[in-house]
């Protein structure tokens, strides 16, 4: 199979799985925690950031290129999302002004800080486990 077609296919199939898992986790967490705050997307983005850091930190070992691309760019890229944060922050601020800022700004800042911390944690853990198993 053509190399670029295989790459696109890997990203597409990974994207299918990532979108499905995001949907399941978002709905499940929202069911549990309620709709007033976007806990579902926060959980998705933090776990996805950790997993991305872990996979990259651990190294890909003997994984073929299509699997690396499918799991990172396809699966985790599609599992996590930025547009949901953008929408969840922008619309309440436009509709409710200062009250919207008070509720959604902590969500935006929390996503930034916790997301980077989760990715750093994943990177370090992945590297450490790769070193111990080498």
């Amino acid at each position, binding site marked *: 199979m053509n190399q670029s077609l295989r*790459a*696109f296919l890997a*990203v*597409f*199939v*990974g*994207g*299918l799985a*990532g*979108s*499905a898992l*995001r*949907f399941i986790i978002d709905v499940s967490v929202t069911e549990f925690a309620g709709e007033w705050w976007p806990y579902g997307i926060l959980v998705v*983005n933090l776990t*996805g*950031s950790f*997993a*991305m*850091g872990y996979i*990259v930190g651990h190294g890909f070992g003997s994984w073929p290129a299509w699997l690396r*691309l499918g799991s*990172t*760019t*396809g699966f*985790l*890229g*599609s*599992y*996590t*999302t*930025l*547009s*949901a*944060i*953008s*929408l969840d*922050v*922008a*619309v309440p*601020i*436009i509709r409710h002004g200062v009250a919207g800022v008070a509720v959604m700004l902590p969500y*935006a*800042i929390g*996503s*930034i*800080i916790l*997301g*980077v911390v*989760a*990715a*750093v944690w*994943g*990177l*370090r853990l992945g590297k450490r486990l790769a070193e111990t198993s080498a």
Partner: protein
Amino acid sequence: MIDFTWIAVQVLFGAFGAAARFGVMSVVTPGRWSWGLFTVNMGGSFLVGAAVGAFSAGSIEWSVAAVVLAFAAGFTTFSTLTLTAAEWTERGELWRGLVLAAKHVLVGAAVAGVGYISAVALLGA
């Protein structure tokens, strides 16, 4: 009752979004500030703002807006952003990593707001 066909459509559009992201990021040169990533994240943020704005203005059905949201969710990504920021942090440039992540999240919200307001202004009664 759970509508599995509707869920499958949304998942499918999420995968289309992922493939489109891969295409855009293969073409736009990453450069020092990850411009390919910035392009997809801002493009997707504008799309969701415009779709929800158009729905609020009564110009499109929720089903159409939801499909756009599903596409944009797969088109944009958070994990590549936090990984890039984490790699800067691990090189001792904590602030650079945080500024990169903050730029995407805060500018993304502003871009979604512009999309929403533009759609309401253009399509509203």
